[in-house]
């Protein structure tokens, strides 16, 4: 790993100031993705801005009909938080399947979303639940947040502060884990929320996406039967040594049916 300067600000304003002054500085939350990348020298930041000392980025609260989760909430906290478990149990269950125990003890909701790994769990949940991303300067709807592989709408000196998840009537999640890496080969989050039925897919393409054909079918009939006639095109899906695009397209349908069963 190349060396870097280390900063540990205690306010969002101070963190943003450091990031704005140095375009090669990078924020670090749990570091579960960034540190392995730095070890491989895939990245050479001049400085790391540790977000671990910023109290404003923590906490889970209910605001009206939404659960607002601080960006620095660890996966373990999302998985076990009583508010999340009561209001959006599918999100808590999903968080309990991210990585392994030690990754969940360090990795954060905000880190995962800002990194936007194609196989990460949270992006599909954010799309399906119609989440709003609250940053250090604005609010971004989930549909505008995920731009492409490892790319989001966040500016280099913009920090994700919290994510607001509208409480759904029903929601469920299912994924097929790669047996070796344990990352999602294809995962589907289904939700029937205040803005209608939404379906988010991860793992299958270069970026999480909404499956609108499923949304239309499930809006008319919230049941696995409704998915029988739905198709998933393999165009633009990932093909690699773990599975071809056709296989992943098939998995998306199967995982959607399991996610519906999970939603109950």
């Amino acid at each position, binding site marked *: *790993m*190349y*060396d*870097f*300067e*280390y900063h*540990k600000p205690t306010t969002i304003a101070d963190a943003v100031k450091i990031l704005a002054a140095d375009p090669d500085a990078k924020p*670090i939350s749990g*570091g*579960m993705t960034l*540190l*392995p990348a*730095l*070890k491989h020298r895939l990245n050479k930041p001049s400085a*790391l801005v*540790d977000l*671990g000392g910023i109290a404003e980025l923590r906490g889970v609260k209910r605001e009206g009909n939404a659960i607002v989760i601080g960006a620095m909430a660890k996966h*373990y906290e999302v998985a076990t938080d009583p508010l999340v478990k009561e209001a959006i149990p599918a999100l808590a269950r999903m968080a309990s399947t991210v*990585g*392994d*125990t*030690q*990754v969940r*003890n*360090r990795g954060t909701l905000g880190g995962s979303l800002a990194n936007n790994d194609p196989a990460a769990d949270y992006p599909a949940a954010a799309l399906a639940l119609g989440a709003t991303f609250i940053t250090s300067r604005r609010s971004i709807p989930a549909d505008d947040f995920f731009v492409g592989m490892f790319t989001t709408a966040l500016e280099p000196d913009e920090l994700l502060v919290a994510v607001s998840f509208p409480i759904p009537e029903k929601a469920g999640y299912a994924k097929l884990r790669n047996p070796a890496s*344990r990352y999602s080969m294809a995962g589907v989050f289904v939700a029937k929320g205040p803005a209608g039925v939404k379906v988010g897919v991860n793992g299958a393409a270069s970026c999480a996406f909404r499956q609108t054909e499923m949304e239309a079918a499930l809006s008319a009939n919230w049941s696995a039967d409704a998915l029988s006639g739905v198709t998933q095109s393999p165009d633009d899906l990932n093909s690699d040594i773990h599975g071809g695009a056709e296989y992943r397209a098939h998995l998306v349908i199967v995982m959607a049916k399991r996610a519906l069963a999970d939603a109950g």
Partner: protein
Amino acid sequence: MPQVTVTVNGQTHTVEVEGRTLLVELLRETLRLTGTHVGCDTSQCGACVVHMNGESVKSCTLLAVQAQGAEVVTIEGLAAADGTLHPMQEAFREYHALQCGFCTPGMVMSAIDLVQKNPQGLSEHDIREGLDGNICRCTGYHNIVKAVAAAADVMHGKRTELAPAIG
């Protein structure tokens, strides 16, 4: 260079580190606590697991500076001063839950966190799932799972002494 103050096994140390120094490097190379192992160095195998503020973490994927002010417990910190083993260590010995022993420090630290977080008890399935982040290439996990279940009974107060391994 940044300075970091960390309490390891009850002893507080203040040391200068580079920003890029990993917690496991601080433990092994500066503090000479070599019970914590580095296996894969890619946060998959779990040989480097220690407790930080009561939670199991992979010390190969944690900067030493991120442990500023933290309470860290390593495998060396488990046994009592008189050498009495922690129930989890005793169970690993009694149930022959190791062969080469390389994964054992991390396995024991993860298992203790798992048992402590589940006072309601653990099924065999729970133990296998809970040790998802620790890889053992020798044992096939069977005896590890038995050892964790036996230690859990002692740690949860269901038994005063470890159930003996039979056969």
